[in-house]
């Protein structure tokens, strides 16, 4: 259904791999900080889903927008966020993206077109539609990539948003990151459809499921959908089938799935897959891959140190930021 994407230049392939390593390293550090009690509240890790985030967001250009989800660290990093400011936000520091007011679930980088993670499932979907309308009315060529999970596909906002975007031909790409569980509820139990992408037919727009752990497949599908959106052909629905290795949040005991299932999906790791592909094509060697990986962990460590050395918000600033 979608056209083939252009061949990726080597620099971009490497950059995508680097970003995937960075997301993995960031999430692992966050996991560790929670375990150690250094972070409070809750967090939702996207380990295992790096392919979808990086593949999709690599298809965007400057001036485009994204709306993200509660599992949004990867989207934020892929959209070019400074991980130092992200780590500072998660540690509740004044230097964080949201001055410590938002935390993991609300990181946004409005300047970069990241309209934020969202604590409400499907909460970003109507907003993405509005951004699409805004771009269209302003005659801008930019689009909005609306990222949501499989859980959101059963919210009313999913239906209302996609329908509105469809009837108005809005430049929005709806990307369902299907990690197969809404907390503990599997998609098999939550819907009769085989795929979320099938639902596109209900709105008269193209829909396609692709392997979400294959960063190039996601990149290709989203690129084609972005092209449609930019050229006034309206929205598309892409579903990336992927898997989260970690629990929903820190309270998760993984009672609803087997260790075997998790292990099976870990064998299809998106980072490993892409690194091996680049190695097999002679674009990278093992040492080079190791080096990239090590650099990601070093950058995250530096971000952590930056956050640690940052000041907490001053108590007297409590009331700031409610109204413009």
């Amino acid at each position, binding site marked *: 259904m979608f056209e083939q994407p252009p061949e990726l230049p080597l620099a971009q392939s490497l950059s995508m791999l680097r970003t995937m390593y960075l997301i993995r390293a960031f999430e692992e550090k966050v996991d560790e900080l929670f375990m150690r009690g250094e972070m409070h509240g809750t967090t939702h890790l996207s380990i295992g889903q790096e392919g979808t985030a990086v593949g999709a967001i690599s298809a965007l250009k400057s001036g485009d927008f994204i709306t993200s989800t509660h599992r949004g660290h990867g989207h934020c990093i892929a959209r070019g966020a400074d991980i130092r400011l992200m780590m500072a936000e998660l540690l509740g520091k004044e230097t964080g993206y949201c001055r410590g007011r938002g935390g993991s679930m609300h990181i946004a980088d409005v300047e970069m077109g990241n*309209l934020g993670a969202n604590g409400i499932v499907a909460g970003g*979907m*109507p*907003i*993405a539609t509005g951004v699409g309308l805004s771009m269209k009315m302003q005659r801008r060529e930019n689009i909005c990539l609306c990222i949501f999970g499989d859980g959101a596909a059963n919210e009313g906002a999913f239906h209302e948003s996609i329908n509105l975007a469809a009837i108005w031909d809005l430049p929005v790409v709806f990307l369902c990151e299907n990690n197969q569980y809404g907390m503990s509820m599997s998609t098999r139990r939550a819907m009769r459809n085989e795929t979320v992408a099938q639902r596109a037919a209900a709105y008269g727009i193209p829909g396609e499921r692709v392997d979400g752990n294959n960063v190039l497949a996601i990149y290709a599908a989203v690129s084609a959908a972005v092209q449609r959106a930019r050229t006034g052909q309206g929205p598309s629905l892409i579903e990336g089938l992927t898997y989260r290795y970690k629990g929903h949040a820190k309270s998760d005991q993984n009672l609803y799935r087997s260790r075997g299932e998790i292990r099976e999906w870990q064998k299809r790791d998106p980072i490993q897959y892409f690194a091996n592909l680049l190695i097999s094509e002679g674009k990278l060697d093992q040492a080079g891959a190791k080096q990239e990986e090590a650099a990601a962990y070093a950058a995250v460590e530096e971000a952590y140190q930056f956050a640690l050395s940052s000041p907490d918000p001053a108590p007297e600033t409590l009331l700031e*930021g409610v109204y413009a």
Partner: protein
Amino acid sequence: MTISQPQTRGTTTAGASEATQQMTYGEAIRRALREEMLSDPRVFLMGEDIGIYGGAFGVTKGLLEEFGEERVRDTPISEQAIAGCAIGAALSGMRPVAEFQFSDFMTLAMDQIVNQGAKLRFMFGGKAQVPVVFRAPLGSGAGLAAQHSQSLEAWFAHVPGLKVALPSTPADAYGLLRAAIHEPNPVIFLEHKALYRVPGMVPVAACETPLGKAAVAREGKHLTIIALSIMVQRALAAAERLAKEGIEAEVIDPRTLRPLDEETLVASARKTGRVLIVHEAVLTGGFGGEIAARIAASEAFYYLDAPIIRLGGAEIPIPYQVELEKRAVPQEEDIFQAAHLLLQQKPA
């Protein structure tokens, strides 16, 4: 139902010339929308049946013809998408004015209004703006029963990040809406459906009524009646009757609940020593409780000669039958009686 002619108010219109013209509340709203659309290309309208139909109450009639389909957007019946779409457009450079056909239907969009629109700026550390206006008719009096007649203003006023306006006159409907569209924050603009056809004088020159400034709708010294939305009109009618008995009631219209002009309310309470609060919403959790608390917690407390009386809707959904519907919410006579009751109280 008795509706008196709105009075001219000195504080209503900042910087306006003296000349006024008569128009209805609905026409005043349309005029504000039209003038904003003419002066700012970012302003556009969206909502159910606002185009060729002109809106359920005819407020947007003629705007489609003047501004076209792109800026007067008919939407499907999708309240959540209407709200969220307006918020997304506001976040990315537009100035949407979204209409809900009835404020009762805003309950279908509460996630977008309360969890998203109201909080995005704060959650993002003050780095975003959401200049959106949500217009909706509230209130009873049209025989539309329980799901089309509520007064839910207190729900919205409870949420930091929103501003809430309830105009009671054509002049304020015009002036407050212009201010709301200029606001960089989300504004819930609640129009009383029984006021749409009520005429009043509106300044000819373009002007706006600042959000957060109460109006002294009538000056008086014996008691203060603080009334919301259509109750301002009923309070003025009751005050007219009281005046014939030599009782001078001061009628205050807060006009916006958030921000609330506490200063004007407290000053009047202090001056008269007796306070009657009237709104159409039920008393439990109603905004009158907030107003009473603010006055009781202020220096006006020491000047009160009687306990504050609150008059509000009966603790029921709005009934259909015409007499029951009337009895469910305060009428002019109820306000008149309550004023007498308040005046009979003697300080201990």
